[in-house]
């Protein structure tokens, strides 16, 4: 399973990339492989405020729906419009083309609570 070292992770299988006060969020390689072919991604509108652990969207495969949980609080700056037509990017390129939202963090300190790549990899082995 691909778990890039430079990203942070959540127990619910989101990855987070921190750049300044902006966090880019997607789902991990493990998550996409468990889901199978992703057919639909429901994302919030830009401008929406999200709280920590709030459901901000859903990702659907043929026979499952998974909620997406906000790993950080803040305001949605941008969503990945490509996923509306190319949801398979979540499968084929989960850490780049398959990104989902960019959030402007209201409390960057929350990032400290996220898992490191090593910790996330270890959690997958359990």
């Amino acid at each position, binding site marked *: 399973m691909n778990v890039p070292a430079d990203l942070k992770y959540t127990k619910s299988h989101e990855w987070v990339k921190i750049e300044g006060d902006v966090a880019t969020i997607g789902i991990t390689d493990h998550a996409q492989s468990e889901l199978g072919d992703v057919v*639909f991604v429901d994302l919030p509108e830009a401008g929406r405020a999200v709280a920590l652990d709030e459901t901000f969207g859903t990702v*659907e*495969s*043929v*026979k*499952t*729906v998974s909620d997406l949980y906000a790993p950080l609080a803040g305001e949605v700056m941008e969503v990945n419009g490509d996923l509306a037509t190319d949801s398979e990017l979540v499968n084929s390129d989960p850490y780049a083309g398959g990104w989902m939202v960019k959030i402007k963090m209201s409390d960057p300190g929350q990032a400290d609570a996220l898992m490191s790549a090593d910790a996330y990899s270890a959690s997958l082995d359990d």
Partner: protein
Amino acid sequence: MPYIPHTEADTQKMLDTIGVKSIDDLFIEIPDNLRVKGQLNVPSAKDEAQLFQHCRDLAERNVDLSRTTCFLGAGIYDRFSPATVGAVISRGEFLTAYTPYQPEASQGYLQTIYEFQSMIAELYGMDVANASMYDGTTSLAEAAIMATYVNKRKKVYVSGAIHPHAREVLNTYCWAMDVEVVEIRTQDGVTKDYSIVKDDAACVLLQTPNFFGCIEDMAVARDAARANGALFIVSADPVAFGLLKPPGDFDADIVVGEGQPLGLPMGFGGPLLGLFACKKEYVRLIPGRIVGRTVDGEGRSGFTMTLRTREQDIRREKATSNICTNEALMALASTVHMSALGKNGIRQVAESTVRNTQYAIQKLKETGCHLKYDQKVFCEFVLSLPKSAVGARDALLEKGILAGLPMGGRYLGDENDLLVAVTELRTRAQIDEFASALKEVLN
């Protein structure tokens, strides 16, 4: 034991394999105080000949409308259905199948559902139809609830001329979901007072032809919905739209209807067939099943249920509806019926209906009755009698004619009002006889 094939020897061998002495041993987890002691208090078993006789005797206690001339409609119509319909739906491969969860072994049914969806969407002029709902009334209620999901509003505006049963079901569903139902008043048999629709409206609901048989102005209703950001929902009799401009041409968002007139027996009101169609932008919020076409690993075309994540078995409390079982067999019946009629047949049935209805209006007016509403009608109209409609209905029944629905009390009319339906099955002679018998009864 009827239908249970076990011989004593089989049962013994099975018990041996399981490793118990008796069938009773398999029920040890049911506490003794909860076991039925002795026999249930119901009649003794009947053999097949007795079953038939018993049911035939019950059936003969009903007035069989294949032998009485039926002018009763009010949502359920005595229409022609070809013999092919019964022949197809009694085939065991269809009749005794379950929901097509295993598409490879269910291609036959899945294809018929795709054809059903296509024909219903075409009839209503809509993008998408689902695989069916329970009946026309629950389909309407589901449409209203769906509208509340679309625009997150909790108020439904409904025409005062929809079928009273549909209104009751709508009220029940909306009560449970804490959605308010507001009535749009009628005048002269058609929906009028759209000015009460406000920008808190989830939807505007209209039935056409309405309960009185009158053809409604869909454009006015649509404009009221659009002006307030509400969805426009139409409940539409399918046969009427063999001739009338379909709701899709009036930009309807959701169209529902009762499919019984498309090949189903009246059957004392069940099973029926809920029709549900909508614009493609709402496809992810549709209640119930949808069948789509795709391909297998070798590129062969095939059908499967699709957009499954809307449904209760996957999304549970967040599902678009709790519906699971629908009316697949009735949808199949109507698919056969629609295929048999085809483009020309549906037009012919609708046209015959209009001719018979217009002739009946003319003849019945000559009896001293008058039309309560001066509107365009398709197959049904409100006849005002000079005396009680119940009395006239009962007297005509003695003469082998079921004259219609007396509207006093529960059915949006006065004591003297009779709702009369005339389908393609009625003949000139039957209509003449109705008129002369009515004249006799009134004098």
